[in-house]
């Protein structure tokens, strides 16, 4: 073989892809058609950059060498190290190096890779600030940390929460530094995994002892007094002390040579190549990270290797074409299993996502499937990527069997549910049938409750059908192999019950702490779903007044002003009337308040009196009068105990066998103010005739000759259910203890807005399961529940009375912050049956016109002294 007869291939750059190109060409070019010169800037042979981090675990540079060293002794291969190419002369077909070497080429390959990108922040050039790309980079970093670490803890910061940043963080941690990752975006590894995966990943990273700050943009790196870096300033005003900083903010293709040579450059950098890897000059190819292929530079080695293979084939007269990039990635950080492949973000039109998340175990898995749920399009695996190896080859193919089975841990199966017939009405407000809800999932491709609501309008009015709609949607999705997340909302991946436990066990006391510890995103501030739910949870785990500090911001307007919002923006007031028992003086007091404030008055279905049409600024005045008359809040606004309805019972009724009123009053006073997942209502009847309709209540008590029968899980409302018998002939003490436990077990474990009837169904073992917990203490939590209720009873205070005593809380009731004495001018009322009601829009318009004509008006603003 005569080298002088061969054509000359010059390769610029001696990185991973260059090595693969040389290997591939020498493999196939048995005839020696090409002799190869590799001009490399780095002072060593091509090495395994992908395994760079293992340099820290004691390996030296030699261990990272790639392939068979004999390659470089091949007479047709010349490797020139430590010499950087500085110019290309396309006309003369020569390249010139920094050391003055000039090589003539028949074909030139650019394999110059990328460089670490350093954002233009002040202080990025300080000693102690590193990038993470070459062996020299990591050797210097190691030396710096070791020198500094003599006897003290080194604080490390990594700018960038991508693949590279996390690897660097792991390496710093392994060197003994206390490390924090700063990610500019909303979640870690945002190029590879979605938000849910990013959140699971954050927990795993935290588990390694590495801190994570999201939405954290560094604006400045400040020096330390002793020299070197000392501190980072963040855009949000925060700061972080750091002795060593690694910048892993991304890479930029090293396309300088190509630019200078006038080759076509991609919009976002990189030398543009076609599918044969040729640049705009047919004598020059581009491979690896520097190549902009199919519109993008790809920061992964596998596509680079594919380009090397294509180029080798083409140089030998073949017709190979770049097959498209495989962007599958797996994080190499011990203890943190993360993989992402294919269409990880579900961008294919119609793609279905199957998500399985177990926040407790730190696992988040998602498969992206074609619209028929058969073909695997991609996936994200966090916390348990064991399925990665078998799934990745299945990309673009039909997955045999149920796709969800690939995600679930062993032996998980959902119990089948009773089927509603398709023509059964589900949402009466909007006249939507069960079939229509199912169809939204099966035919219209809705994959969550929100989409089904938007598509069918079910649940968009009064909302009471939502639990049923949700159940149907979940059922239908489950049939399609899609596991529905029980996440509370976008801010919490946990269900209400999980969150309750997390809050109770961790003892956190404020929303800010809860969202920071258990939320999906740093910096997020909750929503109208999670805030009231957390307000309600905190009310029983860390009781405080509804308007206390940050708690005030969690409440729906009803709880916030301790009244019920009406359609026109005014409020209704319901004083508590325990057991429905009220003195004539009490009735008169309520009546005179209603009269003085011109309130519409109605006896409620809950045996008490509702006063409607109060302005927000009138509420404290009204309540001052009611409190003075001995009344307290009836919590008609709260997800909490409402009423304990009673019949007249044995004291008057000729059939009564027990004093139902006395028990009802006792129970109402015991549970008043108890915040719960949904409202709770109790009923007590004095005999089996059941005049109190106790079996229509969440907790119903019916007197017997020997004591009390206890029924649970009754509901009126949207889905009426009769309560079921839990226990018979209990004495009063046992009865109360059992109700205590039942209520608190419900408070702890029910879903948000789940009433007791569906909750009992959901408890494992149903009614028997509930019985085992509250009567036999099968979970061993009874003492805990008893103590929690004792505390509730002890600490109860009337929230209205407490509010009236606190000027700070009273400030929340001003009509206008800059005009507290001006009444809301938008309120208008008309008379009806001797009282008032809100004027309709037409009536307001008519009144306005009548006023313009100078005629008398029937509509009156609430400020006017109307004989309403």
């Amino acid at each position, binding site marked *: 073989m005569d080298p002088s007869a061969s054509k000359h291939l010059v390769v610029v750059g001696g990185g991973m892809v260059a090595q693969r190109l040389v290997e591939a060409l020498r493999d196939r070019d048995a005839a020696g058609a090409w002799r190869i010169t590799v001009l490399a800037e780095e002072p060593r042979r091509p090495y395994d950059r992908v395994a760079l981090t293992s340099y820290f675990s004691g390996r030296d540079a030699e261990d990272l060498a790639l392939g068979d060293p004999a390659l470089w002794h091949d007479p047709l291969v010349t490797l020139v190290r430590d010499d950087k190419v500085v110019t290309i002369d396309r006309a003369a077909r020569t390249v010139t190096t920094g050391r003055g070497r000039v090589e003539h080429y028949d074909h030139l390959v650019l394999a110059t890779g990328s460089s670490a990108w350093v954002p233009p922040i002040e202080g990025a050039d300080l000693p102690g600030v590193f990038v993470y790309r070459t062996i020299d980079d990591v050797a210097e970093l190691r030396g710096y940390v070791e020198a500094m670490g003599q006897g003290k803890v080194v604080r490390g910061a990594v700018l960038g929460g991508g693949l590279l940043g996390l690897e660097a963080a792991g390496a710093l941690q392994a060197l003994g530094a206390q490390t924090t990752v700063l990610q500019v975006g909303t979640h870690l590894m945002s190029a590879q995994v979605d938000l849910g995966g990013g959140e699971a990943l954050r927990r795993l990273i935290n588990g390694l002892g590495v801190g994570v700050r999201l939405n954290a943009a560094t604006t400045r790196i400040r020096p330390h007094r002793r020299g070197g870096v000392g501190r980072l300033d963040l855009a949000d005003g925060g700061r972080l002390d750091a002795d060593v900083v690694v910048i892993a903010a991304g890479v930029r293709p090293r396309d300088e040579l190509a630019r200078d040579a006038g080759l076509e450059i991609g919009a976002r950098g990189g030398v543009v190549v076609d599918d044969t890897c040729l640049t705009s000059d047919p004598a020059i190819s581009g491979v690896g990270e520097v190549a902009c292929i199919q519109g993008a530079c790809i920061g992964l080695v596998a596509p680079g290797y594919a380009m090397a293979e294509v180029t080798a084939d083409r140089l030998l007269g073949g017709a190979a074409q770049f097959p498209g990039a495989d962007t599958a990635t797996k994080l190499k950080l011990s203890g943190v299993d993360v993989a992402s492949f294919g269409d990880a973000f579900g961008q294919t039109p119609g793609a279905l996502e199957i998500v399985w998340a177990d926040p407790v175990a730190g696992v988040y898995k998602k498969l992206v499937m074609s619209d028929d749920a058969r073909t695997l399009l991609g996936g994200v695996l966090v916390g348990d990527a064991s399925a990665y190896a078998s799934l990745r080859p299945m990309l673009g193919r039909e997955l045999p069997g149920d796709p969800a089975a690939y995600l679930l841990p062993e032996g998980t199966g959902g119990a089948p549910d009773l089927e509603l017939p398709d023509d059964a009405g589900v949402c009466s407000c909007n006249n939507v049938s069960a079939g229509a809800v199912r169809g939204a999932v099966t035919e219209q491709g809705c994959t969550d409750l929100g989409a089904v609501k938007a598509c069918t309008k079910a649940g968009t009015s009064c909302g009471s059908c939502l639990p049923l709609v949700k159940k149907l949607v979940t059922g239908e999705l489950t049939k399609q192999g899609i596991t529905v997340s029980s996440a509370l909302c976008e801010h919490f991946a946990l269900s209400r019950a999980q969150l309750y436990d997390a809050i109770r066990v961790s003892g956190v006391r404020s929303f800010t702490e809860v969202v920071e510890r258990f939320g999906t995103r740093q910096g997020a*501030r909750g929503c*109208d779903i999670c805030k009231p739910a957390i307000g309600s949870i905190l009310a029983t785990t860390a009781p405080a007044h509804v308007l206390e500090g940050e708690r005030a911001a969690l409440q729906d307007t009803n709880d916030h002003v301790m009244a019920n919002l009406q359609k026109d923006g005014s409020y209704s007031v319901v004083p508590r009337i325990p057991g429905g028992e009220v003195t004539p003086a009490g009735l008169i007091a309520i009546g005179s308040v209603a009269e003085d404030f011109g309130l519409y008055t109605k006896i409620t279905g809950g045996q008490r009196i509702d006063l409607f049409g109060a302005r927000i600024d009138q509420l404290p005045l009204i309540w001052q009068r009611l409190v003075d008359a001995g009344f307290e809040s009836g919590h008609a606004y709260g997800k909490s105990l409402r009423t304990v309805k009673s019949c007249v019972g044995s004291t008057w009724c000729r059939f009564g066998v027990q004093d139902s009123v006395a028990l009802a009053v006792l129970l109402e006073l015991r549970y008043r103010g108890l915040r719960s997942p949904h409202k709770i209502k109790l009923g007590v009847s004095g005999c089996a005739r059941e005049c109190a309709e106790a079996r229509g209540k969440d907790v119903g008590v019916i007197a017997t000759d020997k004591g009390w029968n206890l029924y649970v899980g009754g509901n009126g409302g949207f889905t009426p259910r009769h309560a079921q018998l839990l226990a018979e002939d209990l004495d009063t003490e046992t009865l109360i203890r059992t109700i205590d436990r039942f209520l608190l077990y419900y408070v702890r474990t029910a879903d948000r807005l789940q009433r007791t009837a569906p909750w009992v169904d959901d408890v494992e073992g149903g009614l028997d399961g509930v019985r085992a917990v509250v009567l036999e203490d099968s979970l061993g939590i009874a003492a805990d529940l008893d103590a929690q209720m004792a505390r509730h009873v002890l600490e109860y205070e009337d929230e209205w009375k407490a509010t009236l005593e606190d000027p700070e809380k009273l400030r929340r009731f001003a009509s*206008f912050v800059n005009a507290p004495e001006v009444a809301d001018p938008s309120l208008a009322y008309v008379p009806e049956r001797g009282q008032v009601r809100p004027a309709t829009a037409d009536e307001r318009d008519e009144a306005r016109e009548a006023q313009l004509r100078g005629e008398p008006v029937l509509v009156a603003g609430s400020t006017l002294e109307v004989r309403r």
Partner: protein
Amino acid sequence: MTVMERTWVAVCRLDDLARERGAAALVDGVQVALFRLADDRVLAVQQHDPFCDAYVLSRGIVGSRAVDGAEVATVASPMHKQVFDLVTGRCLDPVGKEPVRGMSADLRVWPVRVVDDVVEVGA
């Protein structure tokens, strides 16, 4: 050349507003809902809820939502839970409803500044 001058109306002290809660104010006779966020930014949108025709938005729950990757401050109407972007006024979720009487689903917004602890609304 005419220079448009914005007039700033002093409305209250920052301290008069509770964090992450709204308060209604009357600015030139118009009902404005002011919101003080967790970071003490103050934002202003109309108090009128276009979906229920009542003046209630200041009484909604303040929160945030991820919109195109950015965390956006929001308020949910206390009446029927429509969600609005507090900075732009844009309705982010009409919960399947239409505004009343052909009104815009998006809210009017006012510029707000805090000068020496005094909240001023640009009229």
